[in-house]
C-alpha cells in the first residue's frame, strides 16, 4: 500500500494535497473563480528522488574518470581525511545546437550605449571559458563533493592483494559482524519474522488454538549480532622508491601518487598489513612514512642496495614462512651500469620469497629505449614479477589495477 501511494506516482498526493486536510480559504461556493490553499507538502520527495538518480550518474562519471582523479594533485597533497571537491564535467544532455557563426546577440543598455561599447573584456562573458559569446554556455563544471573514503571505495572496489596465502603465526585481523543469536528485545529492523510467528503459534497452541494471531509483545524475537574476527593471512608490503638525483619532479610525483593510493588501499582493505618504507639512491635506508612521502634527496642510483636492505628486513623481521611479502619498487630505471647484474640477482631472490614483486618504471611515453635496470629485470622470467611503465599521471590508476588486480589474467598497464 505504501508503494502504491508514493508521492512521485500518486497524482493526488503529488499535485493536490488531499482536500480534507486542506483548509479552503476562499469559499468555493460563493466564488468559483479563485481559491487559495496551503497543503502539507512535507512528504513530497520527487525532486529529491530524481536528484539521487543524477547523483548516481555523477558517481558513474567519477568512476569512468578515476584515472584522472586519482592523480589529482589536490588529493595527493591532502591529509587524506577531508572531503574533496572533484571537478567533473557536468553531465550534459545531448542536444542539437545551432552554430551561430557570427555569435551575435541582442542586448539592452542603460540608455546611452554606442556602437563600439565594450560589454565584456578578455573574451568570454557569462558562465565560463566557453568559446561562445553569451549565447553559448561555457564548459560547465560540476563539483562533486566526495569524501576520501568514498573515493577510495570506488578506486579499490575490485582490487586486492594477489596470491595471498594462509601463513601461520600472527594473523591479519579483519572485523565482521555476524547475526548469530535471537533475543526478545531489539530494534524492529532486526525483527526475526519467522521466529516471531513460530512463538505466536506455539503460544496459541498452548491455549489449544491452532492459528496465528493476537500477536503479543512476548512473541517478538529479534536477531542480534556479535563481532567476529576473521583471520586472514599475514602480509607485509615493502615500498621501495628511488629518490636519486635523476628522479625529476614528475617521476617523484608519480611514484608518490602510486604509493599514496597503495597505502590508503592497504589500510582500507586490510586491518593489519604492515608497510615498510625504503628510500634509496646510491645507498638504501628504511624511513618513516612521513619521510618517505616528503623528503627529497639526490645522488647516484644503486638499486641493489634497496633490494639488499629489503632482503635483510625480510630475513630478520618477516620470515617468508609466516608472511606474504609484497616488495614494490619505483624508479626511473637509470641505474649505475655496474650495479645491474647485482640488482638482477637480488630481484630474483626477492621474487622467490614474494607473493608478488612489482616494478614500476617511470619514463616518458615516447622514449624508445629501455632503461638499464628495466632491461636487467626484464631478463628475469619469473611468474611473481609484474612490471609496469608509467609515463604520466593518468597511468597511476592503471598501475594500481595492474598490481592489485585479483584476476591475474587481465592486467591493464603491464607491458
Amino acid at each position, binding site marked *: 500500500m505504501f508503494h502504491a501511494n508514493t508521492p512521485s506516482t500518486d497524482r493526488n498526493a503529488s499535485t493536490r494535497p488531499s482536500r480534507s486536510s486542506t483548509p479552503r480559504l476562499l469559499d468555493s461556493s460563493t466564488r468559483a473563480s479563485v481559491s487559495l490553499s496551503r497543503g502539507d507538502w512535507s512528504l*513530497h520527495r520527487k525532486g529529491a528522488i530524481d536528484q539521487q538518480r543524477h547523483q548516481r550518474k555523477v558517481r558513474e562519471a567519477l568512476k569512468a574518470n578515476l584515472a584522472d582523479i586519482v592523480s589529482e594533485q589536490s588529493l595527493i597533497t591532502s591529509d587524506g581525511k577531508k572531503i574533496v571537491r572533484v571537478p567533473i564535467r557536468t553531465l550534459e544532455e545531448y542536444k542539437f545546437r545551432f552554430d551561430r557563426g557570427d555569435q551575435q546577440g541582442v542586448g539592452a543598455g542603460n540608455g546611452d550605449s554606442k556602437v563600439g561599447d565594450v560589454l565584456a573584456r578578455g573574451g568570454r562573458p557569462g558562465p565560463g571559458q566557453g568559446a561562445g559569446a553569451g549565447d553559448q554556455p561555457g564548459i560547465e563544471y560540476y563539483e562533486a563533493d566526495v569524501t576520501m573514503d568514498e573515493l577510495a571505495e570506488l578506486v579499490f572496489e575490485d582490487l586486492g592483494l594477489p596470491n595471498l596465502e594462509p601463513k601461520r603465526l600472527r594473523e591479519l585481523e579483519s572485523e565482521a559482524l555476524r547475526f548469530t543469536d535471537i533475543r526478545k528485545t531489539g530494534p524492529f529492523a532486526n525483527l526475526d519474522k519467522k521466529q516471531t510467528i513460530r512463538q505466536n503459534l506455539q503460544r496459541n497452541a498452548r491455549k489449544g488454538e491452532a492459528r496465528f494471531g493476537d500477536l503479543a509483545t512476548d512473541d517478538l524475537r529479534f536477531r542480534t549480532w556479535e563481532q567476529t574476527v576473521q583471520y586472514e593471512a599475514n602480509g607485509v608490503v615493502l615500498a621501495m622508491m628511488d629518490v636519486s638525483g635523476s628522479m625529476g619532479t614528475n617521476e617523484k610525483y608519480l611514484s608518490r601518487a602510486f604509493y599514496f593510493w597503495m597505502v590508503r588501499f592497504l589500510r582500507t582493505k586490510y586491518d593489519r598489513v604492515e608497510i615498510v618504507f625504503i628510500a634509496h639512491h646510491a645507498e638504501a635506508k628504511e624511513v618513516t612514512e612521513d619521510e618517505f612521502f616528503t623528503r627529497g634527496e639526490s645522488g647516484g642510483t644503486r638499486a641493489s642496495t634497496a633490494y639488499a636492505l629489503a632482503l635483510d628486513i625480510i630475513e630478520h623481521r618477516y620470515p617468508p614462512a609466516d608472511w606474504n611479502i609484497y616488495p614494490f619498487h619505483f624508479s626511473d630505471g637509470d641505474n649505475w651500469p655496474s650495479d645491474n647484474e647485482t640488482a638482477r640477482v637480488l630481484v630474483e631472490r626477492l621474487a622467490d620469497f614474494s607473493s608478488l614483486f612489482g616494478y614500476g618504471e617511470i619514463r616518458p611515453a615516447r622514449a624508445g629505449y629501455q632503461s638499464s635496470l628495466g632491461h636487467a629485470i626484464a631478463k628475469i622470467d619469473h611468474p611473481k614479477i609484474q612490471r609496469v611503465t608509467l609515463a604520466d599521471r593518468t597511468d597511476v590508476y592503471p598501475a594500481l589495477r595492474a598490481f592489485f588486480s585479483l584476476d591475474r589474467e587481465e592486467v591493464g598497464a603491464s607491458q
Partner: protein
Amino acid sequence: MNAAADDRALADAIERIWDEAQAIGLRPFPTHFEIVPATILYEMGSYLMPGRFSHWTHGKMYQMQKISYDYGLSKIYELVINTNPCWAFLLETNTPIQNKLVVAHVLGHADFFANNAYFARTSGRMLDSVSLNAERIRGYEFEHGQLEVEQLLDAVLAIQEHVDPYSIEMPDDPDDDRTQQRGTPGPYDDLFERDEPIVAPPPAPPRNPFRPSEPDRDLLRFIAQHSPILDDWERDILGIVRAEMLYFYPQMQTKVVNEGWATLCHATLLHRLDLPHDEYVDFADLHAGVTSPGAQRLNPYHLGFNLLKAINERHGGDDEHLAADLFDLRETASDLSLIRNELTEEIVDDLDLYIYGPVGDDIVVTEKRWEAVRDRLVNDLTG
C-alpha cells in the same frame, strides 16, 4: 506572524485582485493558488509541471536550482500552470506585497493562456495527462528496467524540440470546457464555428510502413511511426515526450508576449489597488527588478512589458486601463508577430537595444540601427 491570519489577508487580496482583473477586461481561467515551500516550487520549476516523469536531467535541474536558491543567487516567486482551471504556486516566504504582485502577474498569465490562439489546442487537463504519462513510464521501468528506459529517454529528450507545433491532430476532449470559456461573445462568432474541430483525414495506409510517402518535419512522430526497430513501449515513450513537448511549445513561442502581458497586467492591477506608500515603494522595487534590462541576454519581461505598454498608450490606454486593441493583440500574437509588427524605432531607442558580438577578445556593441535589431531578433526567433 500567524500563518492563518496571513493566509486570510492573502485570500482577501486575491479576491480583490480578481475583481480588478475582471474590471480591466481580463478573462482568465479560474485559478487556484497553492502556497508551497521553496523545495516544492523548485521541484516544479525543474519538471516544468508537477507530476512529470522521472529522469535524471530533472534531478540535475532540481539540484542546480536548489543550490542557486540556497546561495541566494536566484529566486522563483511563482509558477503558473496552463490548465483549466489554472494552478499557481506561491512561495511560502513571499511577503504580502510580493504576493499581491505575483497574484496579479499570475492572473495575467491565466488570461493569456485562456485567450491566446497559440494555446487554443493545449489540453486544459495536462496535469492529469503528465501524471498518467509518468505512471506509464514508471510501469515501463518496472517491466524493462530503469536503465533501459533511461537510455531511451536520453535519446528521445535529445531531439525533443524537433516536433511540428502546427500539426493538427488534437485528441478530442469533450470534457474540456475551454471552448465555451474562450473569449467574449462577439458579432463574428458564426465565423469561428468553421474552426470547429478539424478532423484530419485518416492517412492512407502506406505501402511500406517503414518508407513514408511524404517527408515529416516532426522528427519524433516520424521515428515513432516509421522506425523499423522500436518496440511498442518505446514508441509510446516517444509519443509521451512528443505530446508533452507540443504542450510546452506555445509557451516557448510566446515567452516575450506572455511575460510582457502578465507584467503589464500586474502593473495595471497594482496601480488600481491604491497601495499605501511603503508598499508602493516595495512594489516599484520589485517591478523594476523584474523588468531590468539585460546587457547580453534580452530580458523577455523587459522587452515584452515595454512593447505592450507603448502599444497600450498609443491606443488610448493608461496606467490603470488597458486599450481594447491590446486585447485583440493578446489573442493573436506570438513573439514573432509581436516583434516583427510592433518593434518600432522609438522603442528600440527607448530601450537602448543593440546587437553585440565578439570583436577580438572583447564583446562589443556592433550595431544600433533599429531595423537591424528587429531583423536580428526575428531571425533568432525563426531559427
